[in-house]
């Protein structure tokens, strides 16, 4: 019999069949299962709970992102109102400055003293133009809050920005003007001084018409302004 004869004989087939019958279905006592062999799938409730939690987290994240975006780019009316409020404050500051500066200007016009007035009128043209109606509104009758609101709404945002940039100049002007105005005011009595409320009636101001004629001051604007004044 050759060793390399792989052909199966009938005897070999019988032998294989007998071996298969003896061992194929044999069972041996198995060891107990190891730890962690049986894995329990997460319960459906837990799954839903986890999904709900994930959705809540996602919604909170989206809300936070939206809030941050709103804070970064103000586009709402609230943001506009905040800007207008700032504009009102700026205008009030410039009003004080200009009215203080114009006090000596009026006297300069009457007394024809040009030195302090020149300094006072050296206001940038835009500022003077923008602040003039405000002065009138003050003069008309201690402008009410509603009128201020209307005024604030009429001031465009760009002008507000310009005013904000020019506010330091106005404040410096205010200090200078106060210095110059202090001397003439010291020598005057109250009757000579024009009513501050009606200091500068301006023909351009719409509020001027609302002011009653009796309350108008008797002062007249100088026809000629000192050099440098009124150049726009």
């Amino acid at each position, binding site marked *: 019999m050759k060793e390399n004869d792989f052909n199966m004989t009938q005897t070999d087939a019988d*032998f294989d069949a007998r071996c298969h019958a003896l061992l194929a279905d044999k069972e041996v006592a*198995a*060891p107990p299962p190891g730890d962690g062999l049986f894995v329990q799938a997460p319960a459906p409730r837990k799954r839903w709970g986890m999904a709900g939690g994930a959705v809540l987290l996602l919604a909170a994240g989206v809300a936070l992102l939206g809030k941050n975006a709103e804070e970064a780019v103000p586009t709402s009316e609230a943001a506009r109102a905040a800007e207008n409020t700032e504009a009102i404050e700026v205008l009030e500051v410039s009003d004080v400055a200009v009215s203080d500066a114009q006090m000596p200007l009026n006297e300069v016009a009457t007394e024809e003293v040009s030195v302090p007035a020149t300094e006072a009128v050296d206001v940038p043209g835009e500022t003077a133009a923008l602040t003039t109606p405000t002065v009138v509104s003050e003069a008309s009758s201690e402008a009410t809050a509603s009128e201020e609101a209307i005024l604030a709404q009429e001031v465009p945002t760009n002008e507000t920005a310009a005013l904000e940039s020019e506010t330091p100049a106005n404040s410096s002007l205010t200090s200078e003007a106060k210095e110059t105005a202090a001397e003439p005011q010291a020598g005057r009595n109250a009757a000579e001084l024009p009513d501050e409320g009606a200091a500068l009636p301006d023909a351009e101001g719409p509020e001027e018409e609302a002011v009653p004629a009796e309350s108008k001051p008797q002062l007249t604007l100088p026809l000629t302004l000192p050099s440098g004044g009124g150049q726009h």
Partner: protein
Amino acid sequence: MASSEELKLLIEECKAQKAAAQRQMYTRFSGQLFATALRHTNSREDAEDVLQDSFVKIFKHIKSYRQDFSFEGWMRRIVVNTAITHYRKHLKHQHHQDIAEIPATPRDLENQSDPEFTADELELAIAQLPMGYRTVFCMYVIEGYKHHEIAEQLSIDVNTSKSQLSRARKYLQRVLATLSARAQSTPSTASGNAGFAS
């Protein structure tokens, strides 16, 4: 033995990863699969490792099982593959032993024609085979693999699978004939063993 409907239900529950069903599956099939693992390993410890790893794979991949195949056969193939992988992992620690090194006496060859043997004797004889021969014999004879499948699984040539099967078979026939001859030569012991076996 569970009916096919019960087995289908059990499989579906295992697919749903229910721990109770997995435990029931282990209880039902672990004995049979452990016997398979023992035939394909060198020690009981290795067989326990193979059984554990096999059940992990079974529970993990049970969703890929299709009903048109035998579920037990599918599981046994997983056990065999796991045992082969385990053997390859530990191959460097084992000495290769060729089946030609195992001696056979002329008397054994005389009794090889139609030896009588039991399952325990057969398992004992199989356990004496070198690992490569044992794997080929068990895969072909017990698990029902074809030679090309064995060759693919073990990364050997088909003719190598055929030759190893032939040699393993001859060796087992000789060993079993020897055992049978020894049992016949000692009647008292043989009758005692027969009585115990029955």
